Structure formats: C-alpha cells, structure tokens
C-alpha cells in the first residue's frame, strides 16, 4: 500500500500552522468560498450525505443525515461543536485545534451554512488552554478578515462563533449534557425525544458535531464525495453507511512511540501498534488494548488484527470504534488493575441522575477496589456481570451512553479474562473467596 498522504494533518508540521496566513497559503478557506458562491445549503447537505461522512465523536452517526433532520423552516438553528474530548487517551481534537484551528473553523463555517445556523458554540474542555487560545486567535483573525460576522464575502451569510470552556466533566461531552452545560446548567443529559435537532440549545434546533467530523468537511467540498469514499472500508450492506475517509488514530500506553496518526479508516490495531506506535515497549509482548477510548471495551492480543473501522470492533465484542484512540497494555498489566481503573473512571464521571448508572458504576468500582485489595469473592464477579448487563441505553435502562461505556469494560474483561480474575481472587483471598454473604464493608473501601 502506498504511503497515505495526510489530509487533516497536512499542515501541522509547518511553522505557525495555526495562523490564517499559513492556512491560506495552503489553499485554506477556498472551500467556504466555493460553498458560499456556488452551492445552496441543501446542496451542501447532499454533498456531505453523499460522502457518507460519519461522526468522529464516538457514535459514528452519518453527518449529512444528522444535518437533514433539522426542521426546514426553523428561524434559529445553533451549531454546537463538541471539543470536550474527554474520552481517556483521546487527543486528536486537541491536535486539530492547536495546530490547525482554521481548518476546524472552515469546517464549522460550512456546517453552519449547510444547516442555516448563524451562531456556533465551540465547547472546549478547560484542560485545553492552548487549544482555547489558538481557537480564540483564529476566530479573531477571521473576524478581521471578514470570514466571520455579517454578510460574509458578500454572500448574505452571517455567522458568529463563540468559545465556551467546560469545567472538567466527561459527561459534558455527551451531546445533551453539553447543551445543558452550555446553557449554564448542570450537565445532566436530557431525555430524548425531543432530539437536539428539534429542540436543543436554548430550546432551538441544534446540531452537535465533533471537531474532527467538521474538519473533514472542507476537504469533501474541495475534492468531492467520491474522493472521500475512495478511502476506507466500503459498506457491506445497504443499512451500513460504511467507514470512509481519513481518521485520526491516537496510540498510547505501552508502545515505544505514542502518537496520533492519520490513516484511512480500517487499519488494524496491530498495524497501528507495530508500524506507528513503534511496537510494544521494553521488548515486551502486548496483552490487550483498548480499541477506541475506555468505553469501547477491550481487545485481547489475539484480536489485534481487528480492523478499526466503524464495524470492526463490534465483531469481537467491543462496543464500537469510539474515538479510535488505542491504549496498549503489555503483558505485565493485571486485568484487575485495568478493570479497577475503568470502573473508577465511570463511577467518578457518572452524572448521577439515572439510578442504574449512578449505582451500577459506583457498586462496580467498590467491588473492584475490594477485589484489588485482596478481599474479593467469586460472587463479586457474578454481581459485576449482572451490573454490566443492567446498565445502558442499549437495554434501555439509562438516559445516555455513559452507562454503556461503563458496561463494556466489565463485559469484555469478564468475557475475555475471567480466568485471570478468578485466579487473582482465589490467590489473594484464599480463605474467603467462596464467601456468599453480603460483606460488612470496610470503611476505608466504602468510597474512593
């Protein structure tokens, strides 16, 4: 396979890649010009639909289709750009915002034109000060250059972009949690319906898109839907929108060269580790990997050949592609440590409104803490199993997908590494592992 020519990351190695002049020198803002002068909003939606661009924020929802759900005659539409990027080990949005913010802004402009939004909010997580600063500068530059504001390029199109900083909560990345937070409220995800496309931010129709999703849009405008569909994994049946286009993969954990690389969708996990991550570190063997953020579950070493496209991880029992952020763990990592970490994360981040998620995540975290401390019982694994099956939007028991994300590490660890878990419990709690009675909780373990 010929070396892939980066699209989204084409500019990032240039000096001052974050400035308007460098972006323009590389042909930037040609796409918005083209859109404004030659395309109608409907044309633009149709083009993105034809490209089969799917959301990069985690759910993989077809972007053009999402845009077409907006009521046709809505006087006010808002665009919310999801830059909360808080899925563990995911950092592709940050690279785009810090090193090529104008590419992001151009994507937002086209997205807003297509959806007839005149206001866009970029919700940036507060842990990204540089991204915030660079986006802020870029927006100022655009206003200066007449690329934002009233009557852009004489086209009659108006657009204002506002930056909004979060306050460090994973749940603010969930689209309706984001909207609530943007409105100044507690980020408790909303019940649907109504979906944001009908009633979103400030009770107006709203589109929520990820930074990377939107960064693809100018390129689709410049080079066409067919070009976009020439990359990636084609759809196998009419119901599957396929996995087209370039994708930013993040590789972290126990590899020699953690990095973010751009590749056509569908690269295997093994290729990412070996070719781009420089192989597993310290000459060790890989044991397992997280395919796309903690919430997607776990791949075993044997499953490293799974292609990381929208459909691939699901075939080996993972939740999905997620954010395509791969975290590699070498042979020294204990499944107990992994699972304890995962459970603790979701217990900490559950917003707390749905009982199954609030209590399920907290219970699993406490069970894991106890197992880790050598007081585990085999029965605890049964309970963990039942928790993993009881929470999430898939069984319908919760409002948002955080609970599914919490369930998947449990499901995969219990399904793929049960032997190791049992062994650990028996070894560390030889006298009590068969105990069935509810235990009197040790005070120091009660809360993490």
């Amino acid at each position, binding site marked *: 396979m010929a070396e892939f020519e980066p699209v989204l990351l084409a500019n990032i190695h240039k000096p001052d890649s974050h400035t308007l002049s460098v972006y323009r020198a590389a042909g930037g803002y040609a796409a918005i010009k083209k859109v404004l002068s030659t395309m109608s909003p409907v044309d633009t939606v149709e083009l993105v639909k034809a490209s089969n661009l799917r959301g990069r924020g985690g759910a993989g929802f077809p972007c053009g289709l999402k845009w077409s759900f907006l009521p046709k005659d809505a006087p006010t539409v808002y665009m919310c750009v999801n830059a909360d990027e808080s899925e563990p080990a995911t950092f592709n949005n940050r690279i785009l915002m810090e090193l090529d913010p104008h590419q992001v802004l151009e994507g937002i402009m086209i997205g807003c034109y297509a959806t007839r939004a005149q206001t866009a909010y970029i919700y940036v997580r507060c842990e990204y000060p540089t991204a915030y600063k660079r986006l802020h500068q870029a927006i100022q530059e655009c206003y200066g250059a007449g690329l934002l504001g009233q009557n852009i390029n004489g086209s009659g199109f108006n657009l204002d972009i506002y930056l909004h900083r979060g306050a460090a*909560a994973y*749940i603010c990345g969930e689209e309706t949690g984001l909207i609530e937070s943007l409105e100044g409220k*507690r980020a*408790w995800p909303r*019940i649907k319906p109504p979906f944001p496309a009908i009633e979103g931010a400030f009770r107006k129709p709203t589109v929520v898109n990820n930074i990377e999703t939107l960064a693809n849009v100018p390129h689709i405008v410049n080079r066409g839907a067919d070009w976009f569909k020439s990359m990636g994994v084609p759809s196998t049946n009419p119901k599957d929108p396929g996995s087209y286009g370039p994708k930013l993969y993040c590789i972290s954990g126990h590899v020699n060269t953690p990095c973010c690389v751009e590749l056509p969708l569908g690269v295997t996990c093994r290729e990412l580790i070996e070719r781009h991550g420089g192989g597993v570190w310290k000459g060790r063997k890989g044991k397992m990997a997280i395919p796309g953020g903690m919430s997607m579950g776990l791949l075993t070493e044997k499953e490293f050949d799974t292609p990381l496209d929208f459909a691939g991880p699901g075939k080996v029992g993972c939740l999905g592609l997620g954010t395509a952020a791969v975290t590699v763990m070498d042979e020294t990592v204990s499944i107990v440590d992994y699972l304890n970490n995962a459970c603790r994360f979701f*217990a*900490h*981040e*559950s*917003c*707390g*409104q*749905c*009982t*199954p998620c*609030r*209590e*399920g*995540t*907290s*219970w699993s975290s*406490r069970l894991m803490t106890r197992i880790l401390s050598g007081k585990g019982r085999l*029965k605890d694994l049964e*309970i963990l199993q*039942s928790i993993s099956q*009881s929470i999430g*939007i*898939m*069984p*319908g*028991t*919760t*409002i948002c997908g955080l609970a599914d994300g919490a369930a998947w590490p449990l499901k995969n660890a219990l399904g793929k590494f049960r032997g190791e878990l049992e062994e650990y419990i028996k070894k560390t709690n030889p006298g009590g592992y068969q105990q069935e009675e*509810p*235990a*009197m*909780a040790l*005070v120091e373990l*009660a*809360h993490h």
Partner: protein
Amino acid sequence: MATITVDGKEIEIGDNERLNVIQAADRAGVSIPFYCWHPGLSVVASCRMCLVETGTKNKETGEISMVPKLVPACQTPAKDGTVVVTNSPKVKANQNFVQEGILLDHPVDCPICDQAGECWLQDYYFEFGHQERRADIHPFTSKRRELGPHVSLFADRCVMCSRCVRFTREVSGEGELMVIDRGSHAEIDVFPGFPIDNKMSGNVNDICPVGALCSTDFLYEQRVWFLEAQNSVCTKCSTGCATQMHVNQNQLYRIQPRFNPNANDWWMCDAGRYENQFVTAPERLDGVVIRRNNAWEPLDWPHAIREVYNHVADVALNHGGSHLAVVLSPFLSCEEAYLLASYAVSILSDVTLVVGKIPVVGHDEKFKSGFTIRAEKCPNRRGVEEIVKHFGKQPLDWDGMLAKIATGEIKGAYVTGGYGDPWIDDAEAAKFEHLESLVVQDILPSPLARRAKLVLPGVTAFEKDGSYVNHAGLIQSASWGLRPHGGAHVDGQTFSDLLGRRGIYNAADVLKELAAKVPFFARCTDGVPPAGLNLVTGQEKHPLTTELGTVTHPTPTFRSEGSRMLEVETPTR
C-alpha cells in the same frame, strides 16, 4: 377513544386525555412503580423505576410489535394501539436492580425514619425488590441537616429523584434547592446562606418519596401509621386549599395538601400547613361567660341559649329589627351561616345581616406554577355574602355596620368570629361599647369579647363539619378531625339550638336544606364531592379515582393506608 393494552387487558381512554403509560396502566388496575415522575412537575425519567416494555398493536391485523428496549412509562405517551407489558422478566429485573442500587448507600434506618410507613422505597421493596441482599451492608450513617426553617435533609436516604429540586424551580420558583457533586456522591443542598425559605417550602417534604426530606416540625412527633386522615379545607386564605389533617388521639400532628385541580393542585402554602397553633392555644375560649355586676360569671349551655335570645331578641323587639346587627363571620361554614341567618330573620324579618370583617393582608402572591396565596385571609367570604344577600333586607358589610353603630342606628349586635389571628383592636372594639347589647361568639379572647355582655365559645374548622366557598366560587366540604375544644360548642350546634331545633347538628342535612332554599347553593343537593363544586361557573374537574386511588394523581399525602406491611398484624381484616 384510544385503546391501550396493559398486560393483556384492553382499556379505553378518551381521545383528549393526555396520559402517560403510568396513568393508563393505573386505569387498567396495574400499578407501575415510580419515583421521579410527579404529575405536577416536568418529566425527567431519571429514576428508571418505571421502565416497562412497550409496543404497538396493528389495528387491522391485531399483530403486536414490541420495542426491544425498556422504556420509561412516565415518558411514554399512551396512544391508540399502545401495548404495555409491566410484568415480564426483563421489567422485573430492572425493578430489582433499581431497588438494589438505591439501597447500596441507603442507611435503612427505618426504625427511626419519619417516612417509615409511608415510604415508597419500603413499599416498593416488598413488591419489587430482591429476595436477598447482594450488596455490602454499610455502617449505619444518617446525617441530618437543616435546609430551611421547615425542611430537614437526611442526605443518605435520598434516592436522587430530583422532585424537590424541580419543585423549587418549577412551582415555587425560587430555586433554592440544587444537586451538588456527581455520581453516587451527588446530594441535595442549598447555597450557603440561601436556605429554602419560600412560602411553599413544606411541599418538598411531601413530594420526597423517602425519608430524605422531613418536615422539621413533624420530625419524631408521631409514627404515621397511628395517624388518621380527615379531609379538610384550609381556612388561612380564600384559595381554600384542599387538605388532609392527620390526627391521633385528638391531637393534630400535621396538615398536608390533598389533590384538587380546582383549587390547589398538589400544593399548599406554609402558613396553612404550619400556622395552626391557635387550635391548641391555651387561651382558647372554653365556656360561656356572662357579665353580671361587672364580673364574668360562667353559664351552662342551655341557659346560654336562652340568654342569647334575651340579649339579641330584646333589641330587635324593642327597637325594630334593623336596629339589631347579626354578624356572619367569613370563618363560618355555609351551613352555619345559613342557620344563623335563618335564626336572625326568625326574630324579625328585617334584622340587619352583616358580612363579618374580611381580613386582608398585603397582596395576592402568585407563584411560578400559578399557585396563589391570597391576600384575603378567610375561607368563606363568598358563601357568607350569598347567604346575607339572600336573607338580609339591607345587607351590610363590616364598615357599613360600624358607621351605623356610630350613628346609633344599630343598638345591639351578635358578632361571630372564629379568626385564628388577632382581628380587632381596642380602638375598633371601643365603638361597640355603647351598644345596649353585645353577644360575641369566637374562639379566642379579643378586645371585642372583653366588651361583650355574653361570650360564647365557638370552634375552628378542624373541629367541625362544614363547607366553604373559595375566592373562585368553589365550594368544598371539610370534616371534623378534632373534638371541640373543652367547653366549646360547634357553632352550627349553637345556631341550631337557637333555632329551637332538636338533636345534634348535622352539616350534611343542613347543606341539603340550604341547597333547596338558596338558589346559589342549588348544586349541593347531593353533597359536595372531594374536588368541590364551582357554584359560579357550574363547571369543575373531577379527577378519576381508580382502585389505586391516588396513583394517577399521587397526592403527596398519606400512603400509610397502603402500608400493607402493617395490615398483616391486624387479624380482623
């Protein structure tokens, strides 16, 4: 008509009834458990207790297609063809899991928890919980803190249904309550220095399904299963909230609102709920006294009745009817006002009937949901006015009467009171000093009673049956829950005795009579249903009561009657 199938049973609901699946199932006699839903608040569908399986039935083929996921019954509208399954293993498993989850951090200190006996968590656990506990048993902790003058929080009993928070945002509108922290650490709290002290704050204690929010004044006063509930009507203002009084051994322990869409919905204000100390005030009038030789002498009731006649009838017979004023207090029930008016005109048909003093304090206070505390601080101005208008030749209001006292036209008066708050000052009472005769019937001492020749003790609305017409013309009936204060007679009994009627005063019979005599009350011939009758518009809502009673419109009231746990111990049932 829309047809809904619940657990295989088909029921019909009206086309314009906008019911959710909980309400529709209730009509079918199926109880779906829930915590966070409340018909008076927005739907958040977050507790996940009400999850059911749903589907649709094809009208032509009869084929049913089910949705694979569980859905919240509270958030799902019941539409024509909706199929609901509430008893499948999947539904049960979720109910189990939710109950189990809530109990993870729950202290289960029911023996010292005020909510025990009317606790939804307790009740539901028996019906929907696991047989055994799988979770760790935690060291018992129950921290209490005050969120406001009437609201105590026991944070670890909270099930995070957010009803209380929504109440302060959507109904009272002050928004004092909020959720702090995240996940299982989340708690209800207020901002430091901003307690929940709005004038409707007590309602949050009612709508809290568990013992997390407790009414500070009721705390540890009484186990709820000892309480008996009587339907009552609040007399604190002319909104006339439908209430229940909860009584044990002739002691009033608490007052809670009763659902009435025509008056108060699910709510009541703190004044009505908490400011009823006058009922048990030590200075309550407790026997008839008559002034003889400038000293008070006690009198028994049969003599008292005769003395009233001597005092008031003499004035009318000596000077003419119009020189006697009979004052009908806006605290009298309609039945009582009717009897008193009948008595007055039986002396002489032109006796002056006066609508008693109408206490007005400040302005009407309207809350976010529309609930209004009225400036008019009495329950029955409208009812009394109608009666005075019907019987009186020249009806007067209080000020009109004062003017005629000043000119000497009025020479004697029979004044009824019943006000819980001080209602007349010395200066005003002094105007009555030169009357030939003054009879005062009241519940508390007052500057006026001090100047009377004869003082008759009356009772509060808690101690008598009777009906009241609120500001909007809605008549509602209240039942007695407390025995009349020692020595006092129910006012209606006194009037009945004055009329020379035999036997015990029965408000229901008098209401029937009133309905026949006074056209305004004609609709009351068959009594007054719980939600009242609007005598002005002729129209009102009558919420359906199903077998499950309050579930369709769960009043935040008394569930202890549903505490089957205790009924097991009653062998006679």
